[in-house]
């Protein structure tokens, strides 16, 4: 077998990956047809955490998620140019690079990650969940698009508790502000039955997603819960939650993962399958997107598999039992928004990671602190100390950025990770002795 054939086998895509690729391609084709005027569907820009995808879908509108576009631009090595474009027009080097990447993309013709043009928004649906920058981002986009914005202010959970007042505040906003605004844009009333049907499909997909996440309890773990995990969350955190496509995708993914468990296989990495897993790691913080595969290889080369990550919970914390409830459609949207990971107070985040480390029997946890995201990053050095104190599991700390390649210092990060994994090895030997 030639080297090329071997490489092909190593990275051969599974059916669920092909399905996801088709879903995304079709979605962007629909968006492109709106952009070129061959289709008149309404377009809603919104954010991943606290997204109201079922509601958007029930109106027959198409969602666009600017963070996803930004991270895709990062993966396709386009973000540096977009960020430079935004900084040239007066945006500070200090602020979120997702925002600057998105604005730069807009200034450069608004060509999306699949190479097709993105349509202008008919509505900016500003779900203010867990990240203050979202608000500024849509204020900036409103300046560019001159289109309506509707705000959904989601209260923060400082104590990790959802109070009736919080829920009511969101429900009131949905009923009196958000839904009426969407009805005006869509030109029709909300079909609440259609919404409930979508929510039922969401819950079905969420069951399968949680089964996929929890599969990492096995040894070897059949999934990588961070680098692989960002692909697994793609459909449910973006345009597809509540659709038949998402149900089919997660059913297929779950079956594939269960197959791997039965065969004792690990996940596929950029360098092939990782069956021999020496380190089980939990990761806090988003990945770097501009050097995503290089970053992944720094783990897989050391036989480190990520068994769980907090980034894959930014669009919903389903492994704590939450499921969308079709019987209470508006209240369940409120609870969903409230429960996104970065909407939780720091003590709750630490409790969650501690529990994750124990549940997945992790040997270590690593914090990837990204410059762009204060929502994640402010307080992470305390998270590091607290988790080490509570669990006795050693933590590692690296710094990078989301989509600004200037802040991915490859040699530095690689050195740190190698030292960290060597330390885990030494610790294991010491314990064995």
């Amino acid at each position, binding site marked *: 077998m030639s080297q090329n054939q071997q490489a092909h086998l190593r990275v051969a895509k599974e059916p669920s990956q092909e399905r996801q690729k088709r879903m995304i391609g079709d979605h962007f084709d629909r968006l492109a047809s709106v952009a070129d005027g061959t289709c008149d569907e309404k377009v809603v820009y919104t954010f991943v955490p606290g997204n109201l995808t079922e509601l958007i879908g029930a109106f027959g509108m198409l969602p666009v998620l600017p963070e996803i576009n930004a991270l895709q631009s990062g993966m396709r090595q386009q973000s540096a140019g977009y960020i430079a474009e935004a900084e040239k*027009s*007066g*945006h*500070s080097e*200090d*602020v*979120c690079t997702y*925002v600057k990447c998105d604005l730069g993309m807009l200034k450069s013709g608004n060509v999306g990650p699949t190479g097709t043009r993105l349509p202008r928004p008919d509505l900016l649906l*500003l779900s*203010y969940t867990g*990240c*203050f*920058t979202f*608000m*500024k*981002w849509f*204020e*900036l986009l*409103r*300046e560019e698009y001159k289109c309506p914005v509707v*705000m*959904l*202010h989601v*209260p*923060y959970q*400082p104590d990790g508790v959802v109070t009736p*007042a919080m829920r*009511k*505040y969101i429900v*009131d*906003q949905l009923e*009196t*502000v958000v839904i009426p605004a969407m009805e005006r844009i869509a030109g029709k009333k909300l079909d609440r039955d259609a919404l409930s049907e979508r929510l039922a499909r969401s819950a079905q997909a969420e069951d399968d997603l949680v089964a996929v996440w929890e599969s990492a309890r096995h040894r070897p773990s059949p999934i990588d819960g961070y680098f692989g995990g960002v692909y697994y969350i793609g459909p449910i955190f973006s345009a597809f939650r509540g659709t038949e496509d998402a149900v089919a995708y997660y059913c297929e993914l779950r079956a594939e993962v269960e197959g791997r468990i039965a065969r004792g296989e690990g996940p596929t990495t950029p360098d092939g399958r990782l069956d021999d897993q020496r380190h089980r790691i939990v990761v806090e913080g988003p990945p770097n997107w501009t050097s995503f595969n290089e970053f992944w290889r720094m783990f897989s080369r050391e036989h480190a598999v990520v068994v769980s990550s907090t980034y894959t919970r930014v669009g919903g914390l389903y492994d704590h039992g939450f499921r969308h409830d079709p019987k209470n459609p508006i209240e369940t949207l409120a609870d969903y928004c409230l429960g996104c990971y970065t909407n939780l*107070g*720091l*003590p709750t*985040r*630490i409790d969650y990671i501690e529990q994750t480390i124990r549940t997945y029997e992790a040997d270590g946890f690593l914090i990837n*602190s990204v*410059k762009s995201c*204060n*929502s994640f*990053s*402010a*307080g*992470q*050095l*305390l998270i590091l100390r*607290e988790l080490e104190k509570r669990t006795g599991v050693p933590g590692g700390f690296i*710094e990078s950025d989301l989509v600004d390649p200037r802040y991915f210092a490859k040699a530095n990060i690689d050195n740190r990770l190698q030292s960290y994994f060597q330390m885990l090895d030494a610790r294991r030997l010491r314990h064995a002795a």
Partner: protein
Amino acid sequence: MSAESLVAEARSQVDDVDLGPVHAWKRANPGGLAVGTMPIYVPRPLIEAVGALPVAIFGGGDQVDIIRGDSYFQSYICHIPRSTLELALGGRLDCLDAMIFPSICDVIRNLGGMWRLLFPEKLSVYLDLPQTFDLAVGGRFFAHELHRIASLLEAAGARPLNDEALVAAIRVENVRRAALERVDALRRAEPWRAPASEVYLLARLGGLLPAAEHTRWLEDYLTAAQGRAARPVDNVRVVLVGAFCEQPPLGLLRTLEKAGCDIIEDDLQLGLRTIEGPIDLREGEDPVFSLARSWIERGGATASRYIGDDEKGRALVERVRTLGADGVVFAAASFCDPALLDQPMQEAALARAKIPYTTLKFAENTGQFQVVREQAGAFSDAVKLWGIA
């Protein structure tokens, strides 16, 4: 007392990172709680109404060396949380019985979570300021938040909240607001009598004192400043924008003044000014709801408040024109997301209105002002000579 003496005394109290005025208040009010509040806005009358002292915390400025605080924050986080933590870890905030962290940005929000973990014996409260400005929705939620905070303070040893005490506290607060507005009016009309660097200290002192006591300071200063011998100076009149949380060192304000800029308005002590005009009290209305209504209906435009259907920069342009300002100086703290994300929109609005502006960044412990002096000097010269920057 002369204006200079009042300002010197105000400065000594503001610079006292050991919070001498708070200790003095606690000695005079045994059992009273001191409640720290982070920027920007926490309704102070609510705290005074339960017999507690609201204490505005603005970090350590250029008064403290940061050692432990730096070990909790990455280099790309702004300065105020690290110096605030430095003070607390060093015991200098021990006199505070509680802290309130309002929802102005992700960093201050997360600092509130850190506080709970680092100081579990102290009450730490997050205040969610509504971003939905419908009274029946956002107003009701905010009133609920304020009732919740009053209950938490009561559980920590404060007096129970009652309507009479709150109405009285709001009235006292309104008197203070009126006094502050008179001082601001003097600064706008005759900045050589009440320069911004002085007014800033007088306003900031109010964050450490009960409203009634602060009012006396303001009135004394007003009297002294109006009567002082001062020569009008032909400076440019500027509005300073962007320093609503982390405060610039006093040296930066003085540098701007020396460079020929009279700062006739700023957002430095926004907490005391964010509600435009007095807090309305209505017959038969829960006074807590009156506080909420004042925020919903008359909360001023700032970077951490959602713009709603308003036009970004409109308020700033209108303010510049109303005040007869010649230009705007943007001064944001490094890594301050709200201010820095807001700035391009504000700049665009100024450019459309043909209002000159210049921009600079600072940290609370910035010690070198030569560059600022040159930049501000060039700006004031350009505005004076050509009306442009």
